[in-house]
C-alpha cells in the first residue's frame, strides 16, 4: 500500500484499525521527499527529527486509545514565509538564510495542536514576490507534471510538494493568487480565505492589506478539513475577523441545484489560451448539468484590478521590507558606516524582483506621485470591490479560469516583468476585494493541469467548498497524479 496516496480520512481510519502507525506514514512521506525533491526542489528545509518525534508521540496516544480527529497524524509542510519556532524560516531569501524565529505563526500553532506532523518548509518566491517560483533566492521549483515548467508561485514549492505526494497538505499564502495559481498549475486544490478569516500573525508580511494564509490539498474535502482547523479570530492579529466560523464539512456534500453562478465575460476575453478557455467552458457546462443556474455577468472594472494591485503591492512592500536591514532582521554585510551597512546588506542579499518592487513602491509613495498612484489605486480598489460585491449580491459565486495559460516553461517570462505579472490577472481581483476564492483541478490541456476558480461572497468559504466538491465528484481529476519515477 502506498501510504502517500491515502486521504486524511483513510489515514485516520488506518490508525484506528492499526493497519499502520503514524511513524510509518511519516517515514513514507520522508522517503518521497528523499526520492523526488532532488528533481522538484519543493523544500528548503526538511525536519525529519522533529517530525518523527511528533509521530512517535502520536503513536503513543493511539496506543492509549486516543481517537484521531482534526489533523491527527497528517503530514504537512509550511511555506517558508510562515514562522516556525526553532526552524529556519528564510522567506525564500538569502537575507534570512540563517533566521530562526522565536515563535510559531498562529496557523502553525493551530495545525500542530490539531495533531499535524510538519515535515519541513517549502520553497517559494523570495518574500512571496513572484508567479513562477523562479524568484526563490535559493533555487527554482519544478512542476511535477513537467519538470521543464514552472509550478507557479509564489507558493510553488507547496503546490508541487502536495501534487508529488511529498506531503498531504501544505499551508501557503496568497496575496495576488499565490495559493490558487500554483494550485492550478500543479493540479491540486488551493483555497484563499476571505481577508481576516485566517490569522496573519507570524506570516512574514509582504502586502499586509492583501496577504492571507490558506490550505493546499489534493481534494476538496481535505481543503475543508484543514480550513476548519486554521480559520478563526486571533487576538494577535487585529485584522482577523469576529465572524463565526462556518462548519465547512457539514454542508460539503449538499446539492448545488439552483445555486446562482455568474460567468464574468471579461475573464474570457483576449489573453486567455484557447484550450484553457475550452476546458473551463466544459467545466461550466458540467455545473449546469448538476443543476446550477449559470448566467453571464459583467464586471467592467476587472481589467483594472491588476493595475491597482501593482501599485498597492509595491507600495506596501517598500514599507514592509524596510525592516530587513541587517540590524533588525536578517544577515548583515558590514561596511564602514551604518548607511553603507544598510545599503550593502539590502543590495547584496535581496533579489532583483524584491529590489524592483521596493523601488517601485518608493517611487509611488513619494510626495510628487502619491496621489497619482497610491491614493488613486486605493480608490480604484474601493470601486472594484463595490462592483464585484454588487454582482455577488445577484449571484452567489463567480466562475473563472485560475490562470490564462497552463504552466509555462522555466525561464520563459523572467526577462519580462509584465508577462510574469499577467499570470495573476484572474486571481488578483479576489484579493483586491478581500473575497474568498478557490482553485480546483478543472481538466488537462496537453497533459498539463488547468485550474478552475470560484470566487464567493465574504466568508462564504462553505459555499465555495460545496460547489467545488460537487464538481470534483463528477470530474475527479485529482485521481490523476504526476509520474516522477
Amino acid at each position, binding site marked *: 500500500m502506498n501510504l502517500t496516496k491515502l486521504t486524511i480520512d483513510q489515514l485516520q481510519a488506518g490508525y484506528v484499525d492499526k493497519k499502520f502507525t503514524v511513524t510509518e506514514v511519516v517515514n513514507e512521506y520522508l522517503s518521497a521527499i528523499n526520492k523526488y525533491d532532488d528533481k522538484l526542489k519543493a523544500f528548503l528545509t526538511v525536519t525529519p527529527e522533529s517530525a518523527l518525534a511528533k509521530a512517535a508521540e502520536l503513536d503513543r496516544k493511539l496506543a492509549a486509545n486516543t481517537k484521531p480527529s482534526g489533523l491527527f497524524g497528517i503530514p504537512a509542510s509550511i511555506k517558508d514565509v510562515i514562522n516556525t519556532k526553532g526552524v529556519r524560516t528564510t522567506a525564500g531569501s538569502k537575507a534570512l538564510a540563517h533566521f530562526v524565529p522565536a515563535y510559531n505563526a498562529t496557523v502553525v500553532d493551530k495545525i500542530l495542536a490539531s495533531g499535524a506532523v510538519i515535515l519541513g518548509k517549502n520553497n517559494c518566491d523570495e518574500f512571496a514576490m513572484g508567479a513562477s517560483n523562479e524568484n526563490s533566492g535559493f533555487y527554482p521549483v519544478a512542476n511535477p507534471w513537467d519538470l521543464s515548467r514552472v509550478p507557479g508561485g509564489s507558493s510553488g514549492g507547496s503546490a508541487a510538494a502536495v501534487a508529488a505526494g511529498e506531503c498531504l497538505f501544505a499551508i501557503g499564502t496568497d496575496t495576488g493568487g499565490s495559493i490558487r495559481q500554483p494550485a492550478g498549475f500543479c493540479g491540486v486544490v488551493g483555497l484563499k480565505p476571505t481577508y481576516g478569516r485566517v490569522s496573519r500573525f507570524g506570516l512574514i508580511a509582504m502586502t499586509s492589506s492583501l496577504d492571507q494564509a490558506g490550505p493546499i490539498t489534493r481534494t476538496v474535502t481535505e481543503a475543508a478539513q484543514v480550513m476548519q482547523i486554521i480559520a478563526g479570530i486571533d487576538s494577535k492579529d487585529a485584522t482577523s475577523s469576529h465572524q463565526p466560523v462556518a462548519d465547512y464539512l457539514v454542508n460539503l456534500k449538499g446539492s448545488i441545484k439552483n445555486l446562482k453562478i455568474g460567468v464574468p465575460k471579461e475573464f474570457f476575453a483576449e489573453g486567455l489560451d484557447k484550450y484553457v478557455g475550452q476546458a473551463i467552458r466544459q467545466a461550466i457546462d458540467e455545473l449546469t448539468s448538476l443543476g446550477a443556474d449559470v448566467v453571464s455577468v459583467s464586471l467592467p472594472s476587472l481589467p*483594472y484590478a491588476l493595475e491597482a494591485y501593482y501599485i498597492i503591492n509595491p507600495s506596501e512592500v517598500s514599507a514592509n521590507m524596510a525592516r530587513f536591514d541587517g540590524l533588525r532582521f536578517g544577515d548583515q554585510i558590514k561596511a564602514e558606516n551604518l*548607511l553603507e551597512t544598510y545599503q550593502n546588506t539590502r543590495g547584496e542579499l535581496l533579489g532583483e524582483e524584491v*529590489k524592483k518592487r521596493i523601488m517601485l513602491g518608493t517611487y509611488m509613495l513619494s510626495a510628487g506621485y502619491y496621489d497619482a498612484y497610491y491614493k488613486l489605486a486605493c480608490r480604484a480598489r*474601493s470601486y472594484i470591490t463595490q462592483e464585484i460585491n454588487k454582482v455577488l449580491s445577484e449571484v452567489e459565486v463567480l466562475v473563472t479560469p485560475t490562470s490564462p495559460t497552463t504552466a509555462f516553461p522555466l525561464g520563459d517570462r523572467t526577462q519580462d516583468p509584465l508577462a510574469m505579472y499577467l499570470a495573476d490577472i484572474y486571481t488578483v481581483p479576489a484579493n483586491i476585494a478581500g473575497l474568498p476564492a478557490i482553485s480546483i483541478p478543472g481538466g488537462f490541456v496537453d497533459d498539463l493541469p488547468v485550474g478552475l476558480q470560484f470566487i464567493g461572497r465574504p466568508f462564504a468559504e462553505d459555499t465555495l467548498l460545496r460547489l467545488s466538491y460537487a464538481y470534483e465528484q463528477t470530474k475527479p481529476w485529482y485521481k490523476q497524479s504526476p509520474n516522477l519515477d
Partner: protein
Amino acid sequence: MPITQSEVIKLAKLARLSIKPEALPKLASDLDKVIGYVTKLQTIAATKSISESSESVRLRPDEIESFADMPSLIKAAPEHEGDMICTPPIFSKRL
C-alpha cells in the same frame, strides 16, 4: 516620462539599496515598463466615477484600547525582563 538611470540611482538611495552599475539599464527598463502599465489606471479614473469622495482606505476609529494578550507576546521573546523584551546590542563599544 521614462524612468532614467539617474532616477533609479535616486530611488535606490531613498530605499537604502546598493545597486551595481551594470544592473542599472535593465532596472530602469523594467521599472519604466511597470510604471507605464499601472499608469493605465488613470484611464479608469477618467472614465468611471471614482470620485474624490470615494473611500480610499477604510479605517477603524482611532481609539486607545488595552491589548489583552500582552503576556503571550512578551513570553514569545527569546529573553525578557519583566514587561521588557531584551534585544541584542546594535552598537559595539568600539563605536
